[in-house]
């Protein structure tokens, strides 16, 4: 089975959505981290400038800061601020052990320091293998400094990212669903013009190919595509016209010399001494001329069928009568064949009498030619549910294995050694098939388990108007 275009489109949309979500996550994280770091520095600066008078009392300081930065994300980690009094840098007493190390580390301030608003210095770096953020006044003598361990920020960030990811998991199905709906709608919109063109083209048949107005592009963007199909249609139409003209021209060009040939041969037969050898030879030549005419007629009929220009002169034909007459004749033709029949009366088929007569005769001729001696032929005609079915079954010997598949091939004559004994071209059954198709009937040939051959013709019954 062919892959579905829609399914392929859905898969692509889902893959693209996943890539976009993942890329968004990585990029956002990268930029957000920078922004959050800047933000924490800013807040630490605010804390330093606004609440430095409460520096001695940690609780008072935090209350002051939290009152200012109410609702801020980083006020949550202000509890982890390490407050150091820089004025006591030189003193050993009264300074916490943590501040002791931090205050004396000058490399830290030299590594990544940024001057902010002219009075604050912000920096970020390593002290004793640990990541720190810090802020102080430009004038170090003013003293107070705020320090914060980097991993406190990282933990906060991780909590934020976890929250965001959880949120994404809840949103994702809705997002994908909406994407699929969007894809469905887009597919519909995109496929619609193609469906319109397809509908237009499906109305084209061999007989309507030359109607140039039928193919139209529904939108400007599809004009090139329709143009390609239209060119194809025109080329096809030309080919059909040529094929039709060939059948008609060939018909005319062949018939005239055949008429002359036949006319003169018949004339000569008449003029030659009665019963002379020359007359006998001329008769055998006349037989060959008849054969030539027959071949020409058959080939022309097939070429007309191929060019779709086989016309039918439809009238109601009593198939039962036609078969009854044929069976009656068959009794007198073949004494070595047992002819049996079961013919339903008054089976009426609306068809071209000449073509159908040829069809039935060809089927019968085949049943006789490829029979055994003594052998039998059984005709059966039934009708029901608006259709009739005609089967002609015959005994046979040495049935070729590929008979059912190849019987309708042109110039197929079954087993070569047997075919040589039979006077025929191998065109009869292909003509039958074309005639059946023309009348919306079906024709098949099968070999039964009892080694008999059955030709089955089934077609619509004529509806009384």
């Amino acid at each position, binding site marked *: 089975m062919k892959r579905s275009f829609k399914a392929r489109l859905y898969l692509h949309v889902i893959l693209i959505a996943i890539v976009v979500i993942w890329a968004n996550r990585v990029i956002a994280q990268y930029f957000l981290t920078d922004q959050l770091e800047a933000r924490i520095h800013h807040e630490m600066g605010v804390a330093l400038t606004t609440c430095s008078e409460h520096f001695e009392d940690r609780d008072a300081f935090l209350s002051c800061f939290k009152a200012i930065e109410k609702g801020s994300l980083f006020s949550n980690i202000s509890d982890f601020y390490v407050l150091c009094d820089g004025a006591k840098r030189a003193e050993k007493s009264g300074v916490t052990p943590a501040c002791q190390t931090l205050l004396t580390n000058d490399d830290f301030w030299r590594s990544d320091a940024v001057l902010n608003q002219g009075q604050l210095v912000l920096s970020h770096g390593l002290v004793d293998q640990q990541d720190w953020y810090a802020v102080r006044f430009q004038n170090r003598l003013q003293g107070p400094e705020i320090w914060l361990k980097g991993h406190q920020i990282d933990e906060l960030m991780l909590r934020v990212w976890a929250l965001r990811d959880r949120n994404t998991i809840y949103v994702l199905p809705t997002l994908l669903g909406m994407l699929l709906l969007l894809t469905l709608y887009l597919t519909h919109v995109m496929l619609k013009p193609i469906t319109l063109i397809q509908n237009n083209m499906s109305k084209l048949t061999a007989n309507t190919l030359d109607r140039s107005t039928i193919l139209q592009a529904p939108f400007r963007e599809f004009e090139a595509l329709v143009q390609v199909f239209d060119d194809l249609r025109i080329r096809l139409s030309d080919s059909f016209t040529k094929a039709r003209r060939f059948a*008609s021209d060939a*018909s*005319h*060009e*062949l*018939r*005239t010399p*055949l*008429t*002359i*040939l*036949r*006319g*003169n041969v*018949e*004339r000569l*037969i*008449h003029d030659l001494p*009665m*019963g002379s050898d020359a*007359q*006998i030879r*001329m*008769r*055998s030549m*006349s*037989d060959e001329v*008849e054969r030539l*005419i*027959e071949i020409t007629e058959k080939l022309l009929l097939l070429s*007309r069928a191929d060019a779709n*220009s086989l*016309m*039918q*002169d439809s009238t109601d034909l009593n198939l039962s009568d036609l078969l009854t007459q044929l069976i009656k*004749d*068959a009794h*007198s*033709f*073949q004494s070595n064949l047992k002819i049996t029949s079961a013919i339903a009366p008054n089976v009426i088929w609306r068809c071209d009498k000449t073509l159908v*007569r*040829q069809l039935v*005769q*060809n089927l019968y*001729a085949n049943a*006789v*030619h490829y029979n055994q001696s003594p052998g039998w032929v059984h005709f059966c005609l039934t009708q029901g549910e608006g259709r009739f079915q005609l089967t002609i079954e015959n005994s046979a010997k040495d049935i070729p294995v590929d008979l059912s598949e190849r019987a309708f091939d042109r110039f197929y004559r079954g087993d070569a050694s047997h075919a040589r004994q039979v*006077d025929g071209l191998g065109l*009869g059954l292909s003509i039958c098939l074309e005639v059946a198709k023309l009348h919306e009937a079906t024709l098949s040939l099968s070999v039964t388990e009892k080694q008999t051959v059955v030709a089955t013709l089934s077609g619509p019954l004529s509806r009384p108007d």
Partner: protein
Amino acid sequence: MKLIQKRMVDLKILLIEDEGKIAEFVIKGLSAAGYDVTHVDDGELGLAAVLAGAHDLVILDVMLPKLNGFDLLRQARIAGMTTPVIILSAKVDLPDRLMGFEMGADDYLPKPFFVEEMVARIKAVMQRKIPEQVQQISLSHLTLDVVSHKVQWFDVTAVLSQREFSLLAFLMRSPGHIFSRQQILKHVWEINFDPETNVVDVCVRRIKRKLERGSNGHASPIESVRGVGYRLRLEA
């Protein structure tokens, strides 16, 4: 019936056909059947000859130089020409045949044809023009009743079966012409394949037997020509 035959033989036929070789054997064949044939080989001359009105029947080819057969016929019919016309054409498709009849043709004979077939069509067309219903076909001592299928040969009267009647009527339509078995099968049995049968010989033998029985030594009018076929003797 005799009267019809006499009138048939006196017929003046105009043949409009540009293919010289076809015209040649048609003229020979029709002359042999006793008709008086005039031949022209292009459309314009043909139209002039048709309008001159000196003919009893026109045989008209379609593909003609200067003026094609269909146009010729249409113009002639518009001008009031009522002479029966048989169209002769290599175009055998239904639309062409219908076109012929629409233009006012009385019959349409597709190529390739037998001259005998043409003679039969001429007779049929002329009989349609003559309102008498043909009951019998006669040829000197041989008379065939179309309705009862009774045949009379000198003093012998016999009833023929459907096929025997068709076969004898077919031969009587072209006396003297030799038909092969295949040709007889095609015209009498209407089959276009070789059924590997001697049904024609059997049928001819049956007719001969019926006619010769008690005919005071008159040989049957059907003659077998060895290796060639069967014909109705002219002197029959």
